[in-house]
């Protein structure tokens, strides 16, 4: 056993083009994502405008830099471009990982699974020799590495399998499969799509079909991608599935593209060589057009590149954590979709339709005088929306309000939440115990017992 593992890590090799192609597409997609994000004005509205940012537990030290927040995005932009062309690859991917992750840590209001996916992928790529083929670095050093250890590619494959598989098993629950929720709500509201909008999408049977197909797709697609004989069909489904999600939910942004291009990594390296050749051809044509010539005589190193022994262990640990982390919700009582304790960072994508209305009562514990807070005095509409149904946001905001009113000279402050939330088509119900002074509660990994339980049972994983 031990022998095979050692043999696998040390001797199994594959062609460098696979990782190089992944690097080129990942870098290019990130470059486009950042441009898209910038052009929509979101750097300003999501990171600079808000007076207050919701922090991940333990990361309250991460701050925006006001107008200079743009500089972090410039780092993202330049580093993703360098990753794409393979210029100073290692330092570029590390810069990208740090800059991108830093931005994500500024405010958890913007949390999206695919931002987390991006952080994870770029973290893995910091350790991989993806810049030793089809790169500017090659041109500079005058040599390229034809082969890389196979585990480098397998790490990414395994990680993508985790993403799909966990997204799939998260859908094995009674809301998704038995009630066809939340797809039922979402698809009905897509009545404005041509042809199918007012017909098919209004039918319950279609909502069931979509729910079951979605679940089965996510659970089984990794296996069909791994197995070479089903790979082509599987990849066809990858495109169809993600195209459909883009049609139905335009707001999921770049996620479909990231998943589609990532899935190409499952193919044989012959395909990657072929695709890279095509890119090279286009590049050469453009370069000749501008009368630039690049000497293309690289020395090919056939021996696999040497990687520090520690790196496979770092990545194995990372993947091991990834396998366990989504199950941390088992440690908390109550309904996961309701309490959201252990919901994030677990590949639960498009699973719940949740809305809330949460207002805060600021009370003087001695005089019993109270008043309600107007949330829009402190938060952006987007922050209000996200805060209203997530307990950790509610608690953090309550403490922020406490500090604010204390500074204003109020005394003996207590803060109570008047909160109502609706989940997956259920009627709204009270969410937070209205008699609990939130200032007496601290954020921690312990169970938040001031969340009132959901008046219903959702069965499943």
């Amino acid at each position, binding site marked *: 056993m031990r022998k095979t593992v050692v043999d696998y890590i040390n001797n199994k090799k594959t062609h460098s083009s696979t990782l190089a192609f992944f690097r080129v597409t990942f870098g290019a997609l990130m470059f486009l994502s950042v441009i898209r994000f910038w052009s929509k004005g*979101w750097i300003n509205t999501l990171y600079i405008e808000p007076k207050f940012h919701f922090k991940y537990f333990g990361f309250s030290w991460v701050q925006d830099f006001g107008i200079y927040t743009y500089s972090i995005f410039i780092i993202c932009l330049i580093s993703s471009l360098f990753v794409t062309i393979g210029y100073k690859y290692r330092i570029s991917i590390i810069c990208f990982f740090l800059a991108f992750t830093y931005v994500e840590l500024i405010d958890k209001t913007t949390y999206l699974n*695919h931002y987390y996916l991006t952080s994870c992928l770029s973290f893995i790529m910091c350790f991989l020799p993806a810049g030793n083929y089809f790169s500017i670095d090659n041109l500079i050093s005058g040599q390229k590495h034809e082969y890389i250890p196979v585990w480098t590619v397998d790490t990414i494959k395994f990680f993508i399998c985790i993403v799909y598989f966990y997204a799939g098993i998260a859908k094995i629950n009674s809301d998704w499969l038995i009630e066809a929720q939340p797809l039922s709500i979402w698809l009905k509201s*897509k009545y404005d799509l041509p042809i199918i909008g007012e017909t098919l999408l209004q*039918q319950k049977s279609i909502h069931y079909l979509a729910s079951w197909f979605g679940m089965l797709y996510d659970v089984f697609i990794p296996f069909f991608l791994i197995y070479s004989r089903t790979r082509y069909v599987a990849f066809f489904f990858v495109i169809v599935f993600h195209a459909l999600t883009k049609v139905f939910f*335009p707001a999921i942004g770049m996620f479909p*593209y990231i998943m589609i291009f990532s899935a190409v990594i499952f193919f044989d390296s012959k395909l990657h060589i072929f695709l890279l050749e095509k890119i090279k051809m286009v590049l050469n044509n453009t370069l000749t057009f501008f009368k630039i010539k690049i000497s293309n005589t690289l020395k090919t190193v056939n021996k696999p590149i040497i990687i520090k022994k520690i790196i496979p262990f770092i990545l194995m640990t990372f993947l091991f954590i990834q396998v366990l982390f989504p199950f941390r919700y088992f440690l908390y009582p109550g309904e996961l979709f309701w309490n959201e304790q252990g919901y994030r960072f677990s590949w639960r994508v498009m699973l719940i339709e949740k*809305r809330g209305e949460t207002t805060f009562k600021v009370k003087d514990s001695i005089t019993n005088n109270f008043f*309600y807070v107007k949330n829009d005095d402190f938060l952006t*509409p987007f922050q209000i929306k996200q805060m209203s149904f997530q307990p950790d946001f509610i608690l953090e905001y309550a403490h922020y309000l406490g500090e604010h009113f204390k500074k204003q000279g109020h005394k003996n402050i207590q803060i109570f939440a008047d909160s109502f939330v609706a989940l997956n088509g259920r009627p*709204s119900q009270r969410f937070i115990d209205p008699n609990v002074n939130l200032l007496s509660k601290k954020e921690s990994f312990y169970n938040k017992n001031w969340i009132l339980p959901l008046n219903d049972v959702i069965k499943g994983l």
Partner: protein
Amino acid sequence: MKKYITFLPLTIVLISIQCSSEIEDTDNLVIDETITTEIVSDNNSTDNNDNNNSNSSSLDNETSSFDHKEMLTNWVDNIIIPSISIFDNSLEIFKESATTFVNAPTTETLSNLKEAWLSSFLKWQHVEMFDIGLSEEIYYKNRINLYPTNVERIENNISTLNYDLDEPVNFSAQGLNSIDYLLFGIGENENEIISKFSNENLNYGKYLTDLVDKMVSLTYEIKSSWSDEYKLSFVSSTDNTASSSINKVVNDFIYYFEKGYRANKIGIPAGVFSDKPLPDRVEAYYGKNYSKILALEATDAVNYFFNGNYSNDKESKGLSIKDYLDYLEADKEEKLSEKINSQLEKIKTKVSELNTNFSEQVNQENLKMLTAYDVIQANVVFLKVDMLQVLNISVDYVDADGD
């Protein structure tokens, strides 16, 4: 390698999907084709308009879709435009009474003017929630019904005669509440008020005339903005996007219920958002006895819009948010629309039990105001959480990716 080439068209499809979904927010007028296809369904649904009691029979069939365009048409033709016209007509009478009063300020002309003012104020309650199109652009609702009114500025404007009512700083020195101050607040008693108006050098008459004229001209502008062309583009914008008509009207409706109705009329005077009650923040503060009657009228306006009642004929109904909810909840036993309607009834009862002058209610027994507020707040939850969930309309304009 040819196999790979087959993926090329798919990639192109994907890219075009991306492009089309990116631009969908910017254009409202892409729906020409749906206009022609929906003419057929228009004919069908106008028939069942009249017998539209609780459930339109055509809506029970799951496969038949809800006619969004018909709902928009009902809103525009039977609710929004008639409400504006009714308000506009009442302003004509108001203007006449104002002219008569300014020319000859007597107890009688003043009482006629007050009557006309109240009548317009009541009609306004049916207009305020439609903060769309030009109304939104020119801050129409702020220019007609912003309160508390700024007495200092009004007096300053009158004494200097140097003011531009189109300046935002003067929004709180015009409209129905500023006229409320002129008609009820500039003197200790009616005689004093009449004598102030009688003295032409004091210019109260001129300011009153200017305010009325401004309301008339603004309302005329709003009325004219609903041209056939605008109407067509409005009712054709049936999609479910941030900029589509349905989403905007529904958001405006909820916004009105939360701010214009709940907060302004009840919450702020009751001190819900402040350290202590603010009895001088009620609507029509100087007239004293009108805050309740205005609030009750607004309650009706909310009810009528939710249920699709025509503005000029309350007995008739067209497709409404209620019908839309019932369509989406066809398989549910407990209908959300019923919850909302019964809550609206409760609100009406609670508001009816208040003092005719909310100011006095706040001073004497604020608890009753706070109770009324709680009953209204419960409906804010129904509208903002339950209703928007069923309609799957995003609250306000939140622009960001989601998963």
